């Protein structure tokens, strides 16, 4: 009768290849991850105005605040011009907004019912979370890359290696912030609470990131807080990348551990470990059956 019509599309699970069951399973999970990344990219492309708005504030800080203060702050106190000093901080400011939005969207998806549609898909819940995280990381990095185009305006060279290093640093920082945002989102049910928390902590986190001013002039307790601030590690990492390629622009006063500046690789490791731990915890929370 009509059985073939009903069956035909189901063929992919069987006839795509001779792959064994685990391989087949893995391919399904990867396709689901890719689907969620694809969704994020489509949303980004569908809303160019939104992407421009995310860039608006960092650009404002970079050229108005940075331009105004540059004349007042002597290069010697920072090791570089104020605008160049501000640049890594503004890169972080750009990537954190879309990264944090991933958590907000998880909550709004849950409220709208879209999340339930995702949960109906025959894939594991960690795969869904991984897809959200990868999508958020990618979108955040794309946003950061747009701001990176302005590197020349603050006196940084368009050196391919430097660009690659900064991009890598932004991927890492975006991943960590996205994972932290997801970890927070899986334990909250209402977007209002999430927004309230963000409003409360984002400003201090930005100020304690070392993006606007060197941390070493702060009182000890504030420096201790900065040592636990993932944004500070992100800023430090980007600043370290610049120092690596353009020693003339090396800035002073990032994070210190017991008076010594941690090596770049270690900072990257801290970011990666924090992000991975947050993602694992979120996946654990998210996988609990109802």
């Amino acid at each position, binding site marked *: 009768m009509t059985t073939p019509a009903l069956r035909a599309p189901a063929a992919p699970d069987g006839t*795509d290849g001779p792959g064994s069951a685990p391989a087949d399973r893995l391919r399904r999970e990867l396709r689901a991850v890719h689907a969620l990344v694809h969704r994020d990219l489509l949303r980004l492309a569908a809303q160019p105005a939104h992407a421009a708005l995310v860039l608006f504030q960092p650009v404002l800080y970079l050229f108005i605040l940075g331009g105004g203060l540059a004349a007042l702050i002597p290069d010697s106190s920072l090791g570089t011009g104020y605008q160049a000093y501000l640049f890594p901080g503004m890169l972080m400011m750009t990537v954190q907004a879309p990264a944090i939005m991933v958590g907000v969207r998880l909550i709004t998806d849950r409220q709208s019912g879209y999340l339930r549609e995702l949960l109906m898909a025959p894939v594991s819940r960690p795969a869904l979370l991984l897809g959200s995280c990868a999508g958020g990381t990618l979108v955040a990095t794309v946003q950061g890359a747009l701001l990176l185009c302005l590197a020349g305006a603050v006196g940084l060279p368009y050196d391919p290696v430097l660009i690659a290093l900064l991009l890598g640093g932004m991927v890492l920082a975006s991943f960590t912030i996205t994972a932290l945002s997801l970890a927070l989102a899986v334990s909250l049910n209402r977007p209002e609470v999430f927004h309230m928390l963000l409003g409360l902590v984002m400003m201090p986190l930005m100020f304690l990131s070392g993006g606007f001013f060197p941390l070493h002039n702060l009182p000890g307790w504030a420096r201790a807080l900065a040592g636990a601030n993932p944004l500070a590690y992100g800023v430090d990492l980007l600043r370290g990348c610049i120092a690596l390629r353009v020693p003339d622009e090396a800035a002073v006063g990032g994070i210190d551990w017991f008076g010594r500046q941690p090596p770049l690789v270690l900072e990257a490791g801290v970011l990666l470990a924090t992000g991975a731990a947050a993602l694992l915890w979120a996946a654990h929370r998210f996988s609990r059956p109802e």
Partner: protein
Amino acid sequence: MQPHAGAGAPAQAAPPPAARTSPDSAHGATGPAYAVSTRGLVKTYPGPDGTATHALRGLDLDVHRGETFAFLGPNGAGKSTTIALLCALARPTSGRATVAGADVLTEPDLVRRRVGMLFQHSALDPDLTAEQNLHIHARLYGLSRRDARRRTTETLDAVDLVDRRRALVRTLSGGMRRRLELARGLLHAPEILFLDEPTTGLDPHARAQVWQHLRALRDRQGSTLFVTTHYLEEAENCDRLAIIDGGRLVAQGAPAALKAAIGDDRVVLRTSDDATARRVVREATASPDTAVTADAEGVWLRVPDGSAWIPRLCAALAGHGIAVLAASAAPPTLDDVFFHHTGRSINAARPDRTPDAPGSAP
């Protein structure tokens, strides 16, 4: 009615021979007679202060392959809970269920690969186009890029939305969104499609369109449809239905059979003096087991061959000087079936209506 329902069921149950080599074909559609079968399904949610909410209290349900099955009950009867359990979205407190040949407890992924779902409050991504929504969903279900593109076109065509494929979902009307959701539910060609109140909130025209597509689906592809509803006229058009109330199954069968089981017509009289009329009618029927009820609708009773009784009752009432304002006799409806099994009307059970308000009488 569906003429081929009985004959078609075994045919659909047969698996496509040797065509599928996937691991699930082993315990795949090797011909279980039922699309859905549950035994003693119980779901209890923890309530406030240590109490428990019993959403389902032991459900035994059998849905044949290829039939359109209505799950009828008032709000809060346990319909959505049942669907969540059958789609392996929630785990039953006890009992077991087999859906499309897979066990919901031990093979939840397999169940979800074989069923499609249209939620009561379904959701699409409003910022993406119709086509993009479907493509992403198809990929989530593990379809390759090529298959995803092909199925997207096919299902858009099936619900008559090809010309709106590039429209942002937020610009579509409610009825179009519902049809798009239907297309999304069909992307992975599920054996069973669950629809939770598929037409709630739609205008009559859009409702008719959704049902037209559902019927086409059943007739063309022989899909099993499991529809929850509290619209009696929708349940009426299904092959079989189950009535659920308070987490329990109270009746199961074909609409005609359920109505035939009640048999008697309902005769309603509106008179100038309902209280006296009730006494007179009771005497006129002269049968002790005929219940005569007087309520806001008037005086009513159940008798076989109701229309033949109307002149006799009118004559008896005229003899007592009571004027008959209106009289009607109606064969049993599904609401009567519901009333028969639960002791109240399905509409009266809905919390958003006031059952006894004087103004609500027709």
